[in-house]
């Protein structure tokens, strides 16, 4: 409780500082802050897009344009209230961004920026060639915003309006980033496949962020139109879109205040360069452009897309406090159907047959090990089962229903959770946060609710659940460490805790014991046996034969994509074909 109180106090203090600033600052600072506020809104959307979700848009200025032009046309030509203009502008932005998002977001990441570049060039010429919009020359005489009889007709008055909206947007975005949805975005950026495996519908989530960013841009456009009371196409072109992106990058695409920092740095720097550069170099030219471009390249080389945002790492938002009980247990489906039934599954890569007509079952409460030499197709099989790869032939069933046609994010709902051969954790996020992400599909809170601060109880339950799983794998000491600081073996345990957090009936573990010390392996074995006792099955790929022979109830041996043998550890140990495959019995 106290954590959120501190936070509320912090935001209140910031709001007070801005309010006081609005009264005492000289006119010119108010003007500058107005633009910084407008730019921050747009850059904020890009922080969520680029920094959190790993996609980007070069079309944000066009959304600003939609917001500005809609209100300009409605309030000037039709004489409607600017507030109606806001509603209409956001409505149009919503529709356009949904259409564009649907078109490009299913493609791999680089089509979105290209698509947005093209559409914003297109829109620029449309704005400029419609006479009702004032053409290239622009429209003037846009009426000021009025509210409760108060007219926002000066820069100083607009300052209050702009910063009320900007601070609200910052608060909402910060809430989103520190919620279930925020964890999903970071997971998506880190590795889309992993995110899908834990139930994130990547396309839908990206679409949400894209639309949210577009709406913030539209809002900025509305404020812009009523601040300048003039619009023409030039501030909505591709050059401005690029500048918005630069603001997000300079500020550090990962923290909401980065948007404000970036907008402020670029705005003030430009003001400064305008005065200083001709003095230094004795002639005018596009020095700002060269300077900004070089600055961006340098920042990217040093710090990738985190910009100056590294500064904000000093401030870490504390995780929500745990509640007295965890998430409600996932309802176990009864029945005697096997939890996993692989039936005649094949997969080819070009001419190479990676998995060839493999069949086996994993029954309830069993630990099944999948072994075989490198390249035998074990990890491919995992990917086929969890929906990351499509089957060429065969079927996969779970608990009596077919799952090989499902999208990856739907499979976790059938009780399957996994870990990875190459550890996939958000390295900069804490162990706790990584494990909390595992509970994604067991929780419901959408980004909108999170943004508005509704339904926060779920977060507390999730923390409790995650802490329980972290204790289970024995990492409670490192709970708040960034995951990247842990040893590789420990990171594998974090992956197991994350998978457990999804409440699975079947746990798929890809080389969980690699990198663990002897004692840790023993603890892991104990954990797996506990899970078995509680009715959870485990399918594991492992090279450590001693470990496998110690825990597994059954062993499936793959060789060159084919199933070589299937049986109890004792049977496998005696199987001559297996011994041959392992070059003369290193199994001993």
């Amino acid at each position, binding site marked *: 409780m106290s954590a959120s109180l501190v936070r509320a106090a912090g935001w209140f203090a910031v709001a007070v500082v801005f309010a006081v600033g609005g009264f005492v600052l000289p006119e010119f600072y108010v003007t500058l802050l107005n633009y910084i506020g407008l730019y921050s809104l747009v850059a904020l959307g890009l922080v969520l897009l680029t920094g959190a979700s790993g996609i980007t848009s070069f079309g944000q200025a066009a959304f600003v344009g939609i917001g500005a032009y809609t209100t300009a046309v409605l309030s000037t030509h039709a004489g409607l209230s600017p507030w109606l203009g806001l509603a209409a502008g956001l409505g149009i932005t919503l529709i356009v961004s949904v259409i564009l998002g649907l078109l490009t977001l299913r493609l791999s990441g*680089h089509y979105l*920026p*290209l698509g947005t570049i*093209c559409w914003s060039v297109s829109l620029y010429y449309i704005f400029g060639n419609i006479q009702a919009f004032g053409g290239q020359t622009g429209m003037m005489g846009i009426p000021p915003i009025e509210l409760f009889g108060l007219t926002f007709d000066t820069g100083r008055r607009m300052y209050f309006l702009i910063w009320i909206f900007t601070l609200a947007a910052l608060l909402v975005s910060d809430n989103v980033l520190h919620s279930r949805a925020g964890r999903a975005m970071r997971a998506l950026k880190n590795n*889309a496949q992993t995110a899908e495996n834990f139930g994130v519908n990547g396309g839908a989530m990206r679409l949400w962020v894209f639309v949210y960013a577009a709406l913030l841009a539209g809002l900025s456009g509305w404020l812009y139109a009523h601040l300048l009371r003039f619009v023409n196409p030039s501030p909505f072109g591709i050059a401005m879109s690029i500048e918005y992106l*630069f603001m997000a990058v300079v500020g550090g695409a990962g923290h909401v205040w980065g948007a404000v920092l970036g907008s402020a740095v670029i705005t003030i720097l430009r003001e400064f360069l305008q005065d200083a550069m001709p003095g230094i170099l004795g002639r005018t030219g596009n020095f700002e452009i060269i300077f900004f*471009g070089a600055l*961006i*390249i340098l920042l*990217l080389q040093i710090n990738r897309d985190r910009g100056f945002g590294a500064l904000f790492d000093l401030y870490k938002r504390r995780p929500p406090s745990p509640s007295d009980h965890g998430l409600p247990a996932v309802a176990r489906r009864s029945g005697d159907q096997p939890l996993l039934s692989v039936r005649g599954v094949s997969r080819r890569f070009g001419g190479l047959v990676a998995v060839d007509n493999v069949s086996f079952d994993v029954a309830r409460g069993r630990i099944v090990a999948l072994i075989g030499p490198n390249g035998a197709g074990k990890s491919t099989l995992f990917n086929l089962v969890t929906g990351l790869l499509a089957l060429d032939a065969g079927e996969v069933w779970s608990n009596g229903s077919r799952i090989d046609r499902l999208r990856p994010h739907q499979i976790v709902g059938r009780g399957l959770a996994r870990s990875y051969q190459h550890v996939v954790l958000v390295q900069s996020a804490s162990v706790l946060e990584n494990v909390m992400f595992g509970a994604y599909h067991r929780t419901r809170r959408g980004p909108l609710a999170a943004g508005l601060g509704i339904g926060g109880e779920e977060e507390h339950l999730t923390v409790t659940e995650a802490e329980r799983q972290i204790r289970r794998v024995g990492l409670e000491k490192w709970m708040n460490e960034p995951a990247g600081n842990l040893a590789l073996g420990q990171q594998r345990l974090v992956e197991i805790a994350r998978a457990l957090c999804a409440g699975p009936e079947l746990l798929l573990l890809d080389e969980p014991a690699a990198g663990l010390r002897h004692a840790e392996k023993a603890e892991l074995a104990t954990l797996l046996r506990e899970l078995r006792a509680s009715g959870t099955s485990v399918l594991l790929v492992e090279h450590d034969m001693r470990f496998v022979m110690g825990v597994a109830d059954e062993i499936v041996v793959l060789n060159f994509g084919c199933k070589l043998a299937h049986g109890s550890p004792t049977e496998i140990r005696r199987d001559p074909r297996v011994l041959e495959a392992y070059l003369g019995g290193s199994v001993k």
Partner: protein
Amino acid sequence: MLLTQDGLVNGAIYALLALALILVFTVTRIIFVPQGEFVTYGALTLALLQQGIVPATVLLLLAAGVMAAALELWSGLRSPHRRRSVTLAMLYTGYPALLSYSLYYHIGAPANVAAQVLVTLAIIVPLGPILYRVVFQPMANASVLVLLIAAVALHLVLMGGGLLAFGPEGGRTSPLIQANFDVGVMTVTGQSLATLAASMLLIAVLFLAFRHTLRGKALRATAVNSVGARLVGVSPETAGAICFTLAALVGAVSGILISSITTIYFDTGLLIALKGFIGAIMGALGSYPLGALGALVVGQIEAFSSFWWSAFKEAILFASILPILLWLSITHPATGDEE
């Protein structure tokens, strides 16, 4: 017919650029927005040479070269390949220095057209690998997104540099080939034929070189799998440098070809490059023949939409990417395997 011809000439240029873009993207994962700047640099450098002025792009090359050398030494002196970096650094600074020295103090701007073209290429083409060394090599392992942002930033730097070197006004060059041919009712200018022929030739040469030379095979290997390519002895750095050399060559040649047909400005590059991109996207950023074909289509759309509805030409052209994206999103859904 005339429209088709006009569209074909522009389309051929876009096709060249589309090829360069696909090449750079497949090998280095960079969406190379500044490709258009090579075109404007090529065109305007030639235009200045024809006016008898030694273009300031030489100095730009020198400045970039010095930066590349500094970076090379900085990273190289701490690595085992010390000798190699020193050689490279000397190349990075020595060549531009020699070139600018001889241009400014000895040769001046050559009077002969062929020599002018050669000098232009000698200035612009080395910019490719040098820029790769300075900007992209230090972050070769970054995500596509970060590389794209860097590419856009580089585009701005080059555009600003272009304004410095060439000023705000445009440049045109006299046609390399003066002859006009009358075919039926229409006049075909020699230059547009030459443009077509030269682009075809360059496309063919690139294609053959890719298929049949060792270097070409190495590049293709890098495009498929950079780790694998490194194992068989092709360093991604070398591959990147070669790519950028080719990209700069293609850009400069396009610029030289187009500069007598139209006026080029310091900020023309982006739009030309974007049109090349639309072509490349039609080829899903991977297929060379489809990309080239797409670029030709772009040229046609441009010609016909300027005829029928010139005010909305760009709007139509750039909106035409939407159906393409729709088609791509149905046929090539993301597998999510980018990093």
